[in-house]
């Protein structure tokens, strides 16, 4: 009999708050974090983004990390979220436990590399940041802050990275490889991503409008979201409060195009169906869907099609919370898992801000204002990445 995987802690940092409490407050009061760029050093300041409202120095200060320490913003955001998740779970690392850290990221230390690259090439100036560039190095910086991880792993499947980190963490607990896993993702805003998405012409010049007929692209965001996952027996032994179980998940590949989703949302249908099957749930039992809903023409059409295919006329209340947090790319699966679990725990459904007009070809209507006092039992979150990396996770109250 395989162990149940339970969630005992949540940690989040994004444009709508530095903690779970602040995030709930913003979600309930419909306050978006999308705005003018004020921290990233770029010429494209007219493009709306959702930045974490702290400079690197302020983040260092809040985490008691000295200014001399070689560390990138991706790691700083990750540390902030992991720290909250561990505190939330009242988790005190114990040498007897096998503890893992799995982080999803794509840009890694790019934020420093793009600032120092010409120095890297031509001189020894800033050379200590060369070894902080890759994704794995960013995860290890987080691990080294806490000094309790015997297992580290980094996943990069573009915008579903963090979701896949949570899935892997659950698998490793079920297989009795680890007792406790802190899993999620972290990503900071970079010129690399801003310019990259700009060349693809999928950045909206206005606040994003997922599932709206007038949608014109996404707003980039940044942040980190992590969960404390553990086996039910370990949680019981240390008398931890269980928030919910990880009841189902699915990972499939759209295998259609490097940067576009198939019109029928094939990979999404497969991922959602697999997750429902694993959780032994009928579509009608899901109380809330946190959609990937980026606000691009292609994603929302494809995802809506997939939702209609799986849920038919029983489509539960759904929303994309990206108008709040921006699209936090590799961290999205972590941030949106935390938001979904907060909804489950506190009984509310966050709004899909900025929605006005249903899409002509497929008029699905998300929830437009945050609804409170909703008893939820099962919530589902989608994370889809470039290259067709589609993942779905279902969290359930016991």
């Amino acid at each position, binding site marked *: 009999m395989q162990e149940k995987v339970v969630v005992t802690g949540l940690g989040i940092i994004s444009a709508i708050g530095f903690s779970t409490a602040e995030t709930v407050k913003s979600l309930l009061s419909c306050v978006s974090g999308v705005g003018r760029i004020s921290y990233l050093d*770029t*010429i*494209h300041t007219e493009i709306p983004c959702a930045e974490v409202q702290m400079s690197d120095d302020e983040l260092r200060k809040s985490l008691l990390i000295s200014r001399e320490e070689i560390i990138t913003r991706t790691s700083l955001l990750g540390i902030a979220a992991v720290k909250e998740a561990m505190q939330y779970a009242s988790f005190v690392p114990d040498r007897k436990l096998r503890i893992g850290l799995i982080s999803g990221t*794509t840009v*890694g230390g790019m934020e420093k*590399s*793009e600032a120092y*690259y*010409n120095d*890297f*090439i031509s001189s020894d100036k800033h*050379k*200590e940041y*060369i*070894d902080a560039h*890759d*994704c*794995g*190095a960013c*995860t*290890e910086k987080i*691990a080294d802050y806490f*000094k309790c*991880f*015997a*297992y*580290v*792993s*980094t*996943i*990069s*499947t*573009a915008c579903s990275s963090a979701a896949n980190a949570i899935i*892997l963490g659950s*698998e490793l607990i079920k*297989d009795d*490889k680890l007792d406790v896993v802190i899993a999620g993702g972290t990503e900071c805003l970079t*010129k*690399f991503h801003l*310019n*990259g998405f*700009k*060349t*693809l012409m999928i950045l909206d010049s206005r606040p994003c409008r997922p599932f709206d007929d007038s949608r014109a692209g996404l707003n980039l965001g940044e942040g980190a979201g992590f969960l404390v996952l553990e086996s039910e027996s370990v949680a019981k032994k240390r008398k931890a409060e269980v928030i919910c179980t990880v009841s189902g998940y699915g*990972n*499939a*590949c*759209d*295998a*259609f*195009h*490097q*940067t576009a989703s198939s019109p029928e949302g*094939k990979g999404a249908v*497969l991922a959602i169906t697999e997750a429902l099957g694993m959780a032994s749930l009928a579509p009608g039992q899901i109380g809330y869907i946190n959609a990937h809903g980026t606000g691009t023409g292609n994603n929302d059409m494809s995802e809506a099609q997939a939702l209609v295919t799986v849920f038919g006329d029983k489509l539960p209340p759904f929303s994309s919370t990206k108008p709040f947090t921006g699209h936090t790319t590799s961290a999205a699966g972590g941030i949106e898992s935390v938001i979904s679990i907060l909804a489950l725990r506190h009984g509310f459904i966050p709004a899909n801000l900025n929605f006005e007009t249903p899409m002509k070809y497929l008029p699905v209507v998300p929830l437009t204002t945050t609804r409170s006092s909703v008893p939820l039992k099962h919530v589902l979150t989608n994370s889809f*990445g*470039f*290259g*067709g*990396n589609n993942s779905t996770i279902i969290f359930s109250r016991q």
Partner: protein
Amino acid sequence: MSVYITGTGKISVQPSDASDSNPHLFETRYARCFDPVFSDYINPMEARRMSTIIKRAIVSTQMALTEAGIGIPGAVITGTGLGCIEDTEKFLTSMINDNEKFLKPTFFIHSTHNTISSQIAIRLKCNGYNNTFVHRGISFELALQDAMLLLKQKKVHSALVGGHDEMTPAYFGLLDRIGYWKKETVPSSSLHTSTSAGSVAGEGSTSFILSDEKSHTAYAIITDVSTFYNGDGTSHPSEKIEAFLNLNGLKPADISLVMTGVNGDVNDNRVYYEVIDKLFKNNMAGWYKHLSLEYFTSPAFGLLASAECLKTGQVPAHMMLKGSYNGKLKHVLLYNHFKNRNHSMVLLSSC
């Protein structure tokens, strides 16, 4: 249930006419792959739009699938330390040099780490499980571990697992600046006795088909894969390795061959020699990085070398670090570490 390696493919710094008995040896600080004629495998029109690492990954995948006699694997899982670094560098340098203007999307699209897994999936029309691990020197072993989890739970019956990295001149230079590579050239055949710091830079693309069914092409059984993190340097690799073997019902004495990641860096080599001294004093020990040279996913080359030893029942003399071959191979332990921080163990058995 056992997991078998039933197909393999490799593009490496070894030329295609090199053999186990007559390998290509180096006296260099940095070597690139001997690439096959890509048009033998990929339509030239398509190949034109692909970066080198994608072409290599597609070709080594095709080799592995063909050998295993499989069309579409149940899962596609990639390990890569740096992903598509060539295209990342192209986008990055034009962004910096042209001050965020005049950028084209192509290099950005191909810069993400998961491009390899997704290009393979798109090509094979494989809608199954798809994942990419990007964790320094254990990227490949994490991918392998993921595949083992899927296979053991019978979520899939076969999985494609690849280790792919390219070493561009620019990245070679950056890593050179921070001491990854030797400053002098030494014969690769003597890296195991080197007394200086740094290794020799290489690159490669190695693919495997894992299957829950034994076939006539089977190389070996993969019994278990594990990694551990030693960020604070307080772990004792020997203890962890012994515990890993015990978990699999084995003692160090049961290991016929420990295939180490000895890479010529005196500090890295020391860790391997300590493990050999503590656990495998009377066992045969081998190495392979004089053939693959060093890069983040070089253990994938080591897995193939170990699997070939098990398949043929031979250990080429140049791969022997110590001990003598008594003609019998049962269990092989592939052990690698990255700067004594990330350690990995893969347990293989003959089938």
